C-alpha cells in the first residue's frame, strides 16, 4: 500500500466535469443555466480560470456572422479542409450556432470584441466565415460566473482513471497534486474536458497530455480520426513561437522562396505540403530555413488579430519580444525557423450531443475535436481554421448541455465498489513507492523522438510507421518502471503513460489509412482514394492491445459529395470608359509596370519585380513577381506570366488584349485573367475576366473583382501623365514599346 499519502476522500456530484479550461467552464455554466438544481463539480489539474489552452494562444474566435455565406463556407470546408471526412450535419450545426455561442460568451462576461452598437465585431474571411476575438483573461470571468451559479470547483487535482459500473461510467479517481491524497469522484454523468494530446513538445501547449483521451480509451470508448493528430506549425527556432500565417514567406539558405515552390495558391491555413517541402529542403542540403520578417510583418499590417484592443494579448506579445531580444539571437531581417510539432491528437469519438460510445461519458473541446468528425481530414485545433479551437470547445459545451442535464436527472445514483477503489488507488500511486528507476522526463523525451520527426508524423510510410511504433513500444514496456518522488513527479508519470498511449493510437490509425488525404500523407499511398477510403478509422481497446477498424462515412446522406463539379464561375468586371487613357497607353503600361506599380493601386500594391523582363518590342513570356494585398487576405507574392490571348479559352471581343496567367513554381497555370480594351469616344473602354483552375476560396472571385476595379479605375489619374513623362526616354530596352493589338478595328 501507499506510504506517502493520506486516506481517500470522496466527492459526489450529479455531473463531474474533468478539466476547467474554456470547454469545461462553458459546460458547467451551461448545465447550471439549463438545470440550476443539478449539482456540478468541476475539477482541474491546475487552477481553474488560469489553466487550459484557450488563454495561451491568440484568443481568436471563428464565427459565421451576419453577412457570411454559410453554404459557401460549408462547401469550401468539405472540399478543401475536411476532404469529405466531415460529419457534414455537425459542421452545419457548429457553423450555424457559432454566432450565438460568441454572444453567449459575451453574456457570461468574456470581453469579446464589439462594435459601438454592441454586436460582435468581426472580420470577414475569403473562405466564407469570420473571425472575432477575446482577450487572454477570458477564463477568469467564466470561473466567477460558474462559481456564482453554484458550480463547485476543485483545483490542483489530477484525474487519472474513470470509474465504471454495469457498463456505464460513474465518475473518476485521481489524486491531489499538492499532498498526493487519493480522491474519488462519484457522478451520474461525467464530462471529459481536459484537452487533447500535444506530447509535451511545444511550450505553450505543455498542459495537453492526453489525460482524457487515455481515460476514455481505458473505459472502452471508441476513438476516431486519430491519424489526424500530427500538426506542425512554422516556429521561430530560438523562441519556439509559432509564426502563424508565416508559411508564405519562407526561404532556404540559398535565398530561394520555398513557399512558392511547395504551396499551390492561397490557403486557409498552413498546408501539409510546406511541412514536407521544408523537410525536403533540409534533407537536400539547402538549410537552414528562414522567414523574412519584413515580409511577414508587412503581411500582418492592418490585421485585426494584432490591431484589436486586447491589452493582455499585447502584453504577452511584447513580453515575448522583449525576452527574445534579451536572451535570444540578435534581431534580424531573416529569422531561422523550424517546425514545431504540436500533434493535437483529439480522437475521442462523440455523437452530435458529444456523447462518447460509453454510457454516462461525454467528451468536449479538444478532447474530441477530431473525434467528433465535424472538421474531417484535419488535425484539430486549429484544424486549418484559426479560432476554431476555442469555438469548438464552447460549441461542444453548449451542444452537450441538454443531454448531460437530462441524463444526470434520470440516471440512478452510484456508489463505487470498495475493492475496485483499493485496486485503483494502489496502481495510481505505485510510482511513489518504487525505487528511483525510469524517469518520466526520459520517457517523455523518448516519446518526442518518435512523434516529432517529420519522417514519422508527416511523411508517413508503412516502414517508418512501424519503426515509430517500435520506438513507442519500448517506452510502453517501461511504463511499469516509472518512479516519482512526490505528487508533482507522479503527475508526470501518468502524463507519460497517457502520451505513449496517444502516440500508439495515432501511428496505428495512420498505418491503417492506406491513402493520402488532408493532413494525412502516405509516401507509399500518395493518392486520395475515394473508392475505398470514405471511411473513418476507429481505434478502441481490444482483448490484446489496440483494435483498429473502419466505419463508412455516410456520404450518401450528405449534401456535398466528391466528384461533383466545383468549378468556380468566371469573375467578370466591366470597367466602362477610361477617360483620357488611350489604348496605346494601356499597351505601354503592361510592359512598363515597374515604373508606376504603387500608383496603380496605392493601398494594396507592395512591390514589383520582373523575374523575366518583357523582350524588346514584345511582351510574351515576361514574368513578374507582384506583391499585393487583396481585400482581407494577407499580402501575397503573385507570379504572373504574360501569355498570348489567341490561345486563351476566354473569348476576345475588343481590339487589344493581354492574358495574365497566375503560375506556380513549375509553371502550372492556377488562374488566368484576360484584360481587353479598345478605343472609345473619350479614351478607352476596358473589360477583364478571371478564370480559376481548381478549387478556390468561395469569396475569392468577389475579392478579386473589387481589387481589379480598384486597379483599373486609377488609370485615368496616373497613366496619361506617366506615359507622357517617359516619352523622353528613347532606349527601347528601358522605355519598352509594344503593340497589344490583336484584332482589327470593329468600327
Amino acid at each position: 500500500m501507499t506510504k506517502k499519502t493520506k486516506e481517500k476522500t470522496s466527492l459526489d456530484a450529479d455531473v463531474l466535469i474533468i478539466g476547467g479550461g474554456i470547454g469545461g467552464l462553458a459546460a458547467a455554466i451551461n448545465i447550471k443555466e439549463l438545470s440550476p438544481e443539478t449539482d456540478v463539480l468541476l475539477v482541474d489539474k491546475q487552477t481553474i480560470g488560469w489553466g487550459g489552452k484557450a488563454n495561451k494562444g491568440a484568443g481568436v474566435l471563428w464565427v459565421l456572422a451576419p453577412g457570411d455565406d454559410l453554404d459557401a463556407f460549408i462547401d469550401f470546408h468539405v472540399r478543401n479542409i475536411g476532404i469529405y471526412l466531415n460529419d457534414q450535419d455537425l459542421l452545419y450545426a457548429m457553423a450555424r450556432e457559432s454566432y450565438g455561442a460568441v454572444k453567449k460568451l459575451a453574456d457570461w462576461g468574456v470581453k469579446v470584441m464589439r462594435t459601438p452598437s454592441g454586436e460582435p465585431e468581426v472580420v470577414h474571411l475569403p473562405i466564407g466565415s469570420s473571425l472575432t476575438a477575446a482577450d487572454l483573461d477570458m477564463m477568469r470571468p467564466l470561473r466567477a460566473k460558474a462559481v456564482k451559479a453554484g458550480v463547485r470547483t476543485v483545483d490542483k487535482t489530477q484525474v487519472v482513471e474513470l470509474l465504471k459500473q454495469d457498463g456505464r461510467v460513474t465518475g473518476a479517481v485521481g489524486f491531489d497534486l499538492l499532498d498526493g491524497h487519493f480522491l474519488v469522484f462519484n457522478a451520474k454523468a461525467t464530462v471529459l474536458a481536459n484537452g487533447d494530446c500535444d506530447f509535451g513538445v511545444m511550450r505553450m501547449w505543455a498542459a495537453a497530455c492526453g489525460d482524457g483521451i487515455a481515460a476514455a480509451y481505458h473505459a472502452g470508448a471508441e476513438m476516431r480520426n486519430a491519424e489526424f493528430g500530427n500538426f506542425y506549425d512554422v516556429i521561430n527556432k530560438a523562441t519556439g513561437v509559432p509564426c502563424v500565417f508565416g508559411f508564405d514567406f519562407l526561404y532556404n539558405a540559398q535565398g530561394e522562396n520555398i513557399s512558392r515552390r511547395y504551396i499551390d495558391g492561397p490557403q486557409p491555413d498552413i498546408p501539409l505540403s510546406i511541412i514536407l517541402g521544408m523537410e525536403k529542403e533540409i534533407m537536400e542540403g539547402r538549410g537552414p530555413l528562414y522567414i523574412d520578417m519584413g515580409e511577414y510583418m508587412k503581411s500582418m499590417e492592418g490585421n485585426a488579430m494584432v490591431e484589436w484592443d486586447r491589452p493582455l494579448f499585447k502584453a504577452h506579445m511584447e513580453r515575448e519580444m522583449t525576452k527574445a531580444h534579451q536572451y535570444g539571437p540578435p534581431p534580424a531581417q531573416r529569422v531561422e525557423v523550424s517546425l514545431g510539432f504540436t500533434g493535437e491528437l483529439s480522437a475521442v469519438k462523440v455523437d452530435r450531443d458529444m456523447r462518447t460510445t460509453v454510457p454516462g461519458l461525454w467528451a468536449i473541446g479538444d478532447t474530441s475535436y477530431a473525434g467528433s468528425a465535424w472538421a474531417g481530414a484535419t488535425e484539430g485545433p486549429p484544424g486549418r481554421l484559426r479560432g476554431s479551437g476555442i469555438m469548438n470547445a464552447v460549441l461542444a459545451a453548449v451542444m452537450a448541455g441538454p443531454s448531460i442535464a437530462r441524463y444526470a436527472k434520470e440516471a440512478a445514483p452510484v456508489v463505487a465498489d470498495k475493492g475496485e477503489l483499493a485496486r485503483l488507488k494502489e496502481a495510481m500511486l505505485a510510482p511513489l513507492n518504487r525505487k528511483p528507476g525510469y524517469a518520466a522526463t526520459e520517457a517523455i523525451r523518448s516519446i518526442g523522438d518518435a512523434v516529432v520527426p517529420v519522417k514519422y508524423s508527416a511523411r508517413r510510410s508503412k516502414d517508418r510507421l512501424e519503426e515509430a511504433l517500435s520506438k513507442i513500444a519500448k517506452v510502453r514496456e517501461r511504463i511499469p518502471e516509472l518512479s516519482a518522488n512526490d505528487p508533482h513527479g507522479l503527475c508526470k508519470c501518468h502524463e507519460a503513460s497517457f502520451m505513449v498511449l496517444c502516440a500508439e493510437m495515432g501511428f496505428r490509425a495512420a498505418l491503417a489509412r492506406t491513402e493520402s488525404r488532408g493532413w494525412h500523407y502516405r509516401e507509399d499511398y500518395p493518392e486520395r482514394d475515394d473508392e475505398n477510403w470514405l471511411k473513418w478509422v476507429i481505434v478502441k481497446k481490444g482483448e490484446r492491445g489496440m483494435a483498429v477498424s473502419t466505419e463508412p462515412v455516410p456520404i450518401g446522406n450528405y449534401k456535398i459529395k466528391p466528384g461533383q463539379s466545383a468549378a468556380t464561375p468566371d469573375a467578370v468586371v466591366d470597367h466602362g470608359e477610361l477617360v483620357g487613357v488611350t489604348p496605346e497607353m494601356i499597351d505601354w503600361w503592361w510592359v512598363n509596370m515597374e515604373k508606376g506599380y504603387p500608383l496603380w493601386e496605392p493601398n494594396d500594391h507592395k512591390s514589383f519585380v520582373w523575374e523575366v523582363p518583357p523582350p524588346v518590342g514584345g511582351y510574351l513570356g515576361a514574368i513578374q513577381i507582384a506583391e499585393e494585398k487583396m481585400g482581407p487576405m494577407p499580402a501575397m507574392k503573385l507570379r504572373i506570366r504574360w501569355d498570348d490571348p489567341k490561345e486563351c479559352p476566354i473569348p476576345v471581343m475588343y481590339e487589344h488584349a493581354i492574358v495574365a496567367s497566375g503560375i506556380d513554381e513549375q509553371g502550372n497555370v492556377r488562374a488566368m485573367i484576360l484584360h481587353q480594351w479598345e478605343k472609345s469616344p473619350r479614351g478607352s473602354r476596358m473589360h477583364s475576366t478571371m478564370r480559376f483552375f481548381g478549387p478556390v476560396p468561395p469569396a475569392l472571385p468577389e475579392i478579386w473583382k473589387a481589387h481589379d476595379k480598384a486597379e483599373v479605375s486609377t488609370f485615368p489619374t496616373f497613366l496619361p501623365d506617366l506615359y507622357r513623362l517617359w516619352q523622353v526616354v528613347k532606349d527601347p530596352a528601358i522605355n519598352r514599346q509594344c503593340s497589344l493589338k490583336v484584332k482589327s478595328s470593329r468600327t
Partner: protein
Amino acid sequence: MSAKIEINKETCKGCGTCVKACFVDVMRWDEAEKKPVVAYEQDCVWCFTCEINCPVQCINVVPDMPGQAVAPF
C-alpha cells in the same frame, strides 16, 4: 525547455497570483512565509503569465533558449 525564475521577495506582496497563473505547477505556495516558491523550475515553459500578471512586477523569468528539445528533421 526550462528557465531561471527570479522572485524579488522584498517587493513581493504575497498575493499568490503567480501560483494560480502557473499552468505547469512550477510555482508553489510557502505557507510559513506566505510567499510563492519556485518548486519545479525545470518544468517552466516560460509562458511569462506569472511575470506579466504580477501586480508589483517582482518576477523575472529568464528563458533557456532555444525552446525546441527534439529536432523535427
